[in-house]
């Protein structure tokens, strides 16, 4: 593991949808190492009373420009602090973190299906981008779920990338009315590999559906990540092997079959 502690320069920070922003910073070494599923641990500020770093998935990482971006929902001390940053300010990052990241299914001709909700979407956008760079452009479907149209993330970007975007909204204001599983159920097939990140309930439902259909499904779990480097045992998740493993080191991406949901 090669973990960097970086005082990166913010180059951009903007709102994308209500309460959700993208912060872009210059961190060439991180941009080099980052893989889809990796996250960084962000420090609110040295002087803050909230002392723990908080984890954010890497959304974009470009080794050529050295830029790395995270998409975040503004909710607590760390993300409020992030929202205040302007171009030129510094941001304190530890990363890339994650001992097990998304593994593209190596089967030729496999149909990659992303299922994302909320701030679970950005790591899957990163994954789609990396997959799209393969010599043989693969088939990628991206199911994005949200409560309503204005909460759907990364729509334009995904459209531009040429992936097959399948939005679903609970209120039917855009795409299929319903949940991501309603869309997924139509797509599941033997040649499909599923990659899922979103709220627990979503991952659980998607995982169960895939397991039932015998389809491989990788889920990226959310757990508190006090250290992110494997030393605090605060992030553990129970696995079907009857052991408790660290989401930061043995995850955050797990085979859905291994996860014991709470």
């Amino acid at each position, binding site marked *: 593991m090669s*973990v960097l502690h970086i005082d990166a320069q913010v180059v951009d920070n903007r709102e994308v949808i209500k309460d959700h922003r993208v912060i872009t910073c210059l961190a060439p070494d991180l941009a080099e190492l980052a893989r889809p599923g990796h996250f960084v641990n962000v420090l609110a500020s040295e002087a803050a*009373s909230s*002392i723990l770093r908080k984890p954010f998935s890497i959304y974009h990482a470009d080794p050529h420009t050295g830029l790395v971006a995270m998409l975040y929902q503004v909710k607590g001390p760390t993300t409020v602090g992030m929202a205040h940053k302007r171009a030129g300010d510094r941001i304190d990052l530890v990363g890339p973190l994650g001992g097990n990241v998304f593994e593209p299914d190596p089967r030729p001709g496999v149909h990659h299906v992303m299922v994302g909700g909320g701030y679970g979407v950005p790591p899957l956008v990163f994954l789609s981008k990396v997959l799209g760079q393969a010599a043989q452009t693969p088939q990628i479907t991206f199911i994005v779920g949200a409560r309503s149209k204005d909460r759907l993330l990364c729509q334009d970007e995904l459209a531009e990338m040429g992936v097959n975007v399948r939005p679903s909204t609970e209120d039917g204001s855009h795409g299929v009315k319903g949940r991501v599983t309603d869309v997924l159920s139509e797509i599941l097939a033997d040649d499909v590999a599923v990659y899922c990140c979103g709220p627990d309930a979503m991952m659980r439902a998607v995982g169960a559906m895939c397991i039932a259909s015998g389809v491989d499904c990788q889920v990226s779990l959310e757990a508190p990540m006090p250290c*992110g480097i494997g030393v*605090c045992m*605060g992030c553990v998740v129970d696995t079907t092997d009857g052991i408790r493993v660290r989401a930061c080191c043995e995850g955050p991406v797990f085979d859905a079959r291994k996860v014991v949901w709470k």
Partner: protein
Amino acid sequence: MTHLSVKIGTLDLRNPVMTASGTFGFGVEMASIIDLNRLGAVVVKSTSREMRLGNPTPRITETPSGLLNAIGLQNGGIDNYISEKAPFLRHFNVPIIVNLVGYSVDDYVYLAQRITAAGAADALEINISCPNVKHGCDFSVDPLLTFELIDALRKATPLPLITKLSPNVTSILPIARAAIEAGTDGLALINTLLGTAIDARKRRFKLANVTGGLSGPAIKPVALRMVWQAHQAFPDIPIVGMGGITNGIDAVEFLLAGATAVAVGTATFVNPAASLGVLDGLEAYMDEYGIDDVRELIGAVKAIDD
């Protein structure tokens, strides 16, 4: 040349900065992030007779300037430590201190004997103070039990013994005295303060275990006070001070209060290289104030009008 080395019993530390048990794992992950050989000692996670899964999750939550944890001593057990962790750690040129935890005097003696026989540590830290496990505190609040435990360990191993005390007591002095009389080589203080946190919106405790141990900058004033009290009462016993140490200045404060060495815990979560930052900061302080020997700082705090 700045003199940084200190001694705890027969244990020589090249400098007074060590890691706090439970915040550095078994050194394996840290070895790829920092140079372990620069540390005064590596103190590993509490190790027990059998493998333990620890408490259910969530077992960590944030509080103002602090961290509440209820990990509950998850560890692979002594066999795993001796067969897998110790051989790895022995590749480094740094003293290893194993933190032991058990349910009974027998457990502790067994662990000490296994470690001693395997040469798997340079000293033992005796954790009688973990607030996150049932009966984790029986020893730490009772001088007689503490005496019995340390006395048995003293007879069981020649390794230096550091007894880690609980801050959740009316006075640490009777417990410290018992440990000293039983032959401990040093005291480690403090372990975490017992606390809890509640989610008002969910109307539930934030930790599955209900209570947890409070660490981090929030507890530094309490830790400094206890180190000072113990040092006043027992000036000859080396103390490993800890509780919220984040930088070199914090370390100097603990030394001034009477600690011979310091341990860095929660700060490692915030900054993986915090322990080395503390060491660098301590050296910078000594340079700035022309202090040649770190031992000049130990217990050197004065009253305001002195």
